[in-house]
């Protein structure tokens, strides 16, 4: 029923540091221009923009090889977003374009490459890696972007994702989400006695590794706003506790000394608090804990189940899940517990609300018609859209730009859960680049 477990390494240290500077322009356009070629991300149907991403050049064979790899990663990032259609390098007319030269625009217009990303990779004497690249609007015949990235080590994949983020932002007007990581729960073993471990990978599936050993069950990891910590729930035979895990030191600590079962943790947008659920005597309520003082405030005191709290980006409100009306539905309240109001009124049972980092939408799971659906609605409950439909879709998590959702899907009982991504338009539904059983994804912010 389950594929053989792929043995992931325990995670090594991470976080190289990057410098970024504007490239001096070539003879063509001297300043980064606003793109004439532009992607309207609010359009009804995604029409991917044809873009040419030739292999970046390098002064020697090592640099050339890295240049080739960097371009491939950029190409894959942009393609997966659904907004871009990278053209086959076989179709390119102009070859060997130097990053310091102006492109032969007609050669790119001929193959309908509306944008062009070219660059150069340099391995410095001290081992640092430098990438210079330019983004061109071939039809307007001007440079849109010219940037240089330097990594302290040879972390070329992160540089490639930085290039992707810069191109995505220049052409869509929205922040990218490529230099990010995803933490999830990796599942292995038989259904009745699953082993669950926290796993981490780059958003494109590279560098997967484990964060926990699997000697207890783990659930619902969530990134801190600075990307350095995870809060998650650990379930043992006789206890349910929430932990803080530091990704840089791999140290972890139990959060608080609540009586009862503690679960459903989620950071506040400023990282100073964690909202969570505590079950005491069969009654689950929401608490907010201040991480500095470790004092907690009870926010709900209803006899119903109140769980899955998620902060608004301004930190003033919480959306949560409650069955106080007879079935699980979504409610919004102020973080002091006042002004509780229901926002879900469609057919079915609504759970797992998550406020978008942009604030414009709340993602959720809706159970209706015998299936499970990931959906979004405005925080006032309007403009509800159902994005997916399967046997068991759940636990949506936002990419940091609030444009893409990652969630877990089981296509049928026993098929084993997998991670999927979908654009908030409901288009571009794809299997995430991790083809092993996994649930409970959480997306990091853009790395620094």
């Amino acid at each position, binding site marked *: 029923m389950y594929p053989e477990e792929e043995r992931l390494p325990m995670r090594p240290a991470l976080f190289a540091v990057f410098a970024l500077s504007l490239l001096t322009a070539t003879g063509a356009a001297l300043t980064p221009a606003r793109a004439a070629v532009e992607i309207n991300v609010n359009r009804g149907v995604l029409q991917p923009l044809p873009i040419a991403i030739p292999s970046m050049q390098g002064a020697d064979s090592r640099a050339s090889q890295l240049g080739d790899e960097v371009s491939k990663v950029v190409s894959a990032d942009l393609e997966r977003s659904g907004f871009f259609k990278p053209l086959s390098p076989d179709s390119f007319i102009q070859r060997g374009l130097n990053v310091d030269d102006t492109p032969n625009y007609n050669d790119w217009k001929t193959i309908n490459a509306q944008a062009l990303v070219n660059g150069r990779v340099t391995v410095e004497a001290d081992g640092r890696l430098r990438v210079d690249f330019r983004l061109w609007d071939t039809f307007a015949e001007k440079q849109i972007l010219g940037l240089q990235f330097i990594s302290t080590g040879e972390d070329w994949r992160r540089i490639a994702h930085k290039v992707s983020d810069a191109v995505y932002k220049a052409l869509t007007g929205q922040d990218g989400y490529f230099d990010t990581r995803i933490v999830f729960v990796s599942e292995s073993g*038989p*259904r*009745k*006695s*699953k082993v*669950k471990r926290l796993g981490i990978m780059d958003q494109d599936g590279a560098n997967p590794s484990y964060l926990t050993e699997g000697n207890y*069950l783990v*659930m*619902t990891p969530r990134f801190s706003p600075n990307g350095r910590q995870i809060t998650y729930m650990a*379930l043992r*035979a*006789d*206890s*349910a506790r929430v932990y803080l895990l530091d990704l840089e030191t791999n140290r972890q600590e139990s959060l608080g000394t609540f009586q009862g*079962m503690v*679960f*459903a943790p989620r950071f506040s947008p400023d990282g100073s608090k964690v909202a969570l*659920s505590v*079950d005491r*005597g*069969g*009654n*689950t309520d929401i608490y907010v804990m201040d991480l500095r003082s470790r004092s907690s405030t009870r926010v709900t005191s209803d006899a119903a*189940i109140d*769980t*899955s709290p998620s902060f608004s980006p301004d930190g003033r409100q919480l959306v949560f*899940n409650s*069955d106080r009306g007879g*079935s*699980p539905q979504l409610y919004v309240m102020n973080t002091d517990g006042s002004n509780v109001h229901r926002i879900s009124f469609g057919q079915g*049972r609504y*759970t*797992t609300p998550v406020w978008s980092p942009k604030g414009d939408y709340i993602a959720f*799971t809706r*159970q209706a018609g015998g299936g*499970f659906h990931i959906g979004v609605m405005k925080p006032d409950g309007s403009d509800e859209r159902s994005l997916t439909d399967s046997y*068991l879709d*759940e*636990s949506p998590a936002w990419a940091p730009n609030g444009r893409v959702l990652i969630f877990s899907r089981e296509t*049928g*009982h*026993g098929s084993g859960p997998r991670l999927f991504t979908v654009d908030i338009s409901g288009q571009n539904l794809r299997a995430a680049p991790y083809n092993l059983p996994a*649930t*409970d994804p959480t997306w990091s912010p853009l790395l620094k």
Partner: protein
Amino acid sequence: MTKGNLPVSSNTLKILVACAAVAALSACASHKPPEPAATNSGPAYMPPPPPPPPPPMHDDIGSRQTGPIPGSMQDFAVNAGDRVYFDYDQYSVRGDAAPVLDKQAQWLGRYPQVQVRIEGNADERGTREYNFALAARRAEAVKSYLVGHGVQPGRITTISYGKERPLDDGGSEAAMAKNRNAHTAITSGAGG
């Protein structure tokens, strides 16, 4: 007619094998094999000594004619019932669960040294956090019932396993119904 003899010696052999298999258990050595039913010549209603427990891994030996040791986990599971079931998205004790919990309460009254943990479970047709809370309610509902029937609350802890530990890994409605349960696990104090 010699047919009475063979079963007797056969039964004795079985008991001996069972004793050998559980030689570590002190109960074994001191217990005589139960008298064959045919030699019903002792005092009226003198109960036979408790039979030895069946060996844990070989339940084809000895378990057909010998019940679990009174006060043991198996005794609790067999003679009281260690699990009750719930309706979909519900946590109220069902009519068919009440007699089981009554027996659990009686059994726990008989063995006051026993401590239990009520483990609430939910089926997979719900999201993780909600089902965790739902299964916690089920565990608490069982605890409340037992306390209402005389079990000291200090003897009972509760935990939710949400939908993480299904009893039945099938996908049918019958399997889902089995997975909506609360299991009463003995954590200490059981004999045997």
